[in-house]
């Protein structure tokens, strides 16, 4: 079994094999990704599950062709076979542009991305911490009848090495914790949820998560039906993180070109309001997506994707940078979005780098969150999005279920909870209608996707379901 300590040796071995097999250039991306998941169901710990994924992704260049393969088997014959598979793939993938793997460069230091206490957290302690969310939710109010949630703990190590002498290492820790509470004192029922993520154990506050989820659930018990209309909507961090997530996703040139062309050919054009500036900053200390290098070993850098509503930049790894003759922005991420392959949080060696923002966020504005509420005469406060989709990726039709945490805002005050509703609008209109951004970033998200995000206000059509 290969250990992290052996990564350099295995990396060198792969580069030698590739050289012997007549590769012009080679790269090995070695990953150890440990995930512990504790699932909470029906007020209990339902299951605890772990994975320790160790493997290598191999990229080769030969005769102007690029190939990739991966393996979790480090025996010499398997490494040879995997390298050959990458070389075979390179035969039919001749690049119509000049491409070379990145050269070595000194990476910056990024603080607060690896926490020994989190890395060494014993599994029984992790189970207990996860269960504290349930305990606190049940203790908050007797009307709480059910809780479900998850705690994911990730520890990763990676090494990228290539035939230019690049040898870059990175290690990180990460947790995500979430709880959905149900209040059901009788026939009525209402849900509440809270979710957060962080890089260190000191950021984990399971009891706060449990209490906030329970608070939201209880506050929804007297929910009234909503009247269909177009409203000013205040998006608290979780739905705001979802908007940020879509903006960032659309800023990948690969996504724009192949799947969701909403931002394609819009560089330099206004796609959002003056209030909206979106950056990708993997240098942020303790940032959810921060790291000193990207996943092809390029030193991290900050980039502005949208400036005052104008689409400023797409993000680039070295491959897409070479293809589109753009300067790479250290945005190579090995995201596994293929079916039948790993999709664990943390690092993944099964895929080639693709250009992806790594720690994107909406830049805070000059509003206090409370000021935004006070300044809203007749609108809605939205705390959660559910099943959010761009249902028409070319035109921007956008929808989300406002499953819980929906409140009316009247004369500058949160007036009361509203029943489940659906947002149906256009994504570009939502961006153009942003008229307030709060001054504080909070970590929020759902189902594996988290970001640092402010509260924002925009306008959207909302209908009851």
């Amino acid at each position, binding site marked *: 079994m290969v250990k992290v300590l052996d990564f350099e040796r295995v990396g060198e071995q792969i580069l030698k094999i590739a050289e012997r097999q007549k590769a012009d250039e080679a790269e090995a991306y070695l990953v150890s990704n440990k995930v512990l998941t504790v699932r909470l169901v029906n007020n209990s710990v339902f299951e605890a599950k772990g994975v320790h994924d160790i493997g290598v992704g191999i990229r080769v260049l030969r005769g102007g062709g690029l190939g990739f393969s991966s393996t979790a*088997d480090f025996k010499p014959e398997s490494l040879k076979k995997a390298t050959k598979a990458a070389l075979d793939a390179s035969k039919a993938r001749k690049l119509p542009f000049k491409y070379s793997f990145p050269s070595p460069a000194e990476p910056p230091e990024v603080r607060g991305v690896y926490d020994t206490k989190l890395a060494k957290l014993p599994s029984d302690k992790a189970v207990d911490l996860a269960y504290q969310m349930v305990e606190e939710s049940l203790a908050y109010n007797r009307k709480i009848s059910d809780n479900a949630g998850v705690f994911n703990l990730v520890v990763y190590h990676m090494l990228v090495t290539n035939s230019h002498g690049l040898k870059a290492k990175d290690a990180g820790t990460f947790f995500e914790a979430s709880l959905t509470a149900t209040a059901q004192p009788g026939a009525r029922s209402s849900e509440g949820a809270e979710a957060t993520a962080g890089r260190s154990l000191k950021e984990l506050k399971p009891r706060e998560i449990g209490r906030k989820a329970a608070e939201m659930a209880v506050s929804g018990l007297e929910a009234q039906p909503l009247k269909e209309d177009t409203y000013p909507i205040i998006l608290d961090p979780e739905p705001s993180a979802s908007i940020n997530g879509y903006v960032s996703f659309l800023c990948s040139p690969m996504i724009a070109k192949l799947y969701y062309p909403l931002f394609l050919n819009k560089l330099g054009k206004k796609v959002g309001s003056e209030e909206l500036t979106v950056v990708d900053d993997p240098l942020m200390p303790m940032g959810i997506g921060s790291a000193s290098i990207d996943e092809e070993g390029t030193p991290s850098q900050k980039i502005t994707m949208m400036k005052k509503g104008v689409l400023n930049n797409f993000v680039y790894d070295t491959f897409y940078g070479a293809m589109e003759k753009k300067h790479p922005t250290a945005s190579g991420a090995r995201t596994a979005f293929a079916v039948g392959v790993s999709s664990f949080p943390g690092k993944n060696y099964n895929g080639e780098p693709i250009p992806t923002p790594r720690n994107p966020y909406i830049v805070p504005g000059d509003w206090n969150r409370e000021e935004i509420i006070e300044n809203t005469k007749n609108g809605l406060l939205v705390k959660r999005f559910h099943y959010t989709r761009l249902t028409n990726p070319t035109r921007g039709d956008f929808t989300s279920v406002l499953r819980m945490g929906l409140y009316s805002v009247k004369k500058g005050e949160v007036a009361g909870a509203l029943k489940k509703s659906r947002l149906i609008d256009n994504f570009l209109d939502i961006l153009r209608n942003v008229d307030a951004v709060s001054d504080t970033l909070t970590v929020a998200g759902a189902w594996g996707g988290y970001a640092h995000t402010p509260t924002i206000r925009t306008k959207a059509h909302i209908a009851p379901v």
Partner: protein
Amino acid sequence: MQEDLALPAIDYATKLGADYADARLEAHYNELVTVANGKTERAVVNQKRGIGIRTLVKGAWGFQSTTNLTKAGIEEATNIAFKIAKASSRHVAKPVKLAPAKAYRDSYTAEVKVDLEEIAFEDKIRQFLKWEKRLHASKNVVRGLIEYTGIKIAKLFVNSQGANIKFANTLTWATSKADARKGDITQSYEQTVGHAGGYEIFEEQDISKVASETGLKAASLLKAKAAKMEKDARVILEPNYVALLVHEIVGHPSEADRVLGREAAWAGTTWWAGRIGEKIGSKYCTVYDDPMVPKTLGFYRYDDEGVKARRKVLIEKGVLKGHMQSRETAEEFGVKPNAGMRAITFEYIPLIRMSNTFFADGDWKYEEMLEETRHGYLVINMRHPSIDDQRYNWTISAQEGYEIRNGELTTHLRDVQLTSNAPNFFKSIDASSKKGEIHPLPGCGKGDPMQALYVGNGGPYLCGVATILGGR
């Protein structure tokens, strides 16, 4: 597969004190290729072997996977699976119990005519590039895309009750997508062909022809009219659209773990929890989940708990009949397990998943449905869904549509999006056609961490009522 690797894990777990243990030893070979506009965007070969060990200790589950297939590595993983189950058992309100299941010993293989590895990877890429060219069948096509996935899995399942099942599966599919543009309007169209089987699918279903149709469809949508909002419109849903609809509003809510609130954290719950035996739809509303349909993406004979597969009746003539079950949920419901458990790889714990979920055939001809419609819409080909947490309210976009007037297709429509509530829609179904289809749906997501799985979905043409949203 090497039983000498998997069986000791079970013995060791039992020795540690596990009440039950199972292990899945698997070897995976995956090919993923994306070609677009004459270029290969991505070409990936992944290989992986490993084992996932699941233990039940004092009513709590523990699971650990590893790629370290040495005796020490497997023992370490088994130890962790036992230890975390034991730690979890301190916070279990209702201990897990498993419904009895016969311990089968069997071996089977999905039928493959052309093995994926028989054709050189580079030759495949050349073919994809050729097919991608066919997408540019119209000068208005500005982007073409072929995405291919080929998966080979060799799996050995063993458990502490004596089950020993070997399964060799191959799954092959490709999606062709074209974007067409004229002036400010961009329209896209996509179609997927795929099956449980080898590379022969692309000849059998003539993907070259599918690609050129896809290109022409995208271009034809440029001349189509944008759909307009119409409340409670009469709709005829074509089988590919029905595939996504049945997936979202029957398949997911039929997962018994979801019914029991176990997916409440993210995915949600089910509006029909506790309503088995109730009438929820019209007599045309019959839905099955059936893993025993060969050549489909949802094909298997035993699930990942070793339970023998059979057809599950989910809804019969409008009456909610049953759910997809694991051994554990079957015990809770007091029914027999029906082989609903699957995991995408050895790295993941199995979950209750769809196999092939589809509306049953009816007694109408499509032409008759059309003739009977004075004013309505034909809705064709799935695009994107957004469904509420109880699978009650749904919004699903389609790739194209036609207005129907006096029994004839008239105006071609783009930007079609439907919405309704599940019970209203089920009750509104007043006709279903004779010959259903099962389509490949390769990206069904569930679980935390997410497991994107391949399933089959479909049905015949269905007539019902839903609101056309159009676009905003």
